[in-house]
């Protein structure tokens, strides 16, 4: 299972999903009303490293984080 967490203002509890790549995650989240509107602007991290492509093989226990737009300082 893969852990998915939603950071900052996304109002959603973490979830566990049975997937092997990010395209499958996209299919799940685009049908989720709490998250779908965030997908256009969110960056994605796998195990706390930001990623820039979807074709990454996921392993059980991996953690995916969705990071909405930021404003520090």
């Amino acid at each position, binding site marked *: 299972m893969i852990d998915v967490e939603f*950071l*900052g*203002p996304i109002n959603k509890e973490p979830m566990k999903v049975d997937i092997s790549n*990010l395209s499958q*995650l*996209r299919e799940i*989240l*685009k049908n989720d009303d709490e998250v779908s509107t965030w*997908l*256009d*602007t*969110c*960056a*994605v*991290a796998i195990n*706390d*490293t*930001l*990623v*820039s*492509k*979807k074709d990454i093989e996921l392993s059980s226990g991996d953690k995916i*984080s*969705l*990071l*909405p*737009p*930021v*404003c*520090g*300082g």
Partner: protein
Amino acid sequence: MENLELFEGSLEVEKITNGWYDKYKNSNYGAIITFIGVVRDENKIDGLSFDIYEPILNNWFNSWQEKAKDSRGDVFNHESSYIAAVCSPKRRIALELIDEFVEDFKAQAPIWKYDIINGDRIYAEDRSTAIKGYGLLS
């Protein structure tokens, strides 16, 4: 990397900046440049509130050589939420670095800002910037 420190609530500006000055004044840096971010009284806010995601913030910071302090939680108007400093033997390098560092911090560090208005916490969406690589799942 020097260090990154996080505090709950507003920052004790004098204590932090005096401490850095005392620590580095004898290191023969020709320039110590400090940036202090202060919460403005505007748009009827009582203050700002911040969420921070530490693991990625640490990764972001590891690529820099500076020193920075940042708040999490609530910081009220006219208090400080952010202090960063750059030390360099050359003032021009320090001035350029502090500019780049503060801009990159605002645009890429995993920190989310909220206005505090009448006790409610409202995401500052219009002042926020999507992190590089955004939209991967769109």
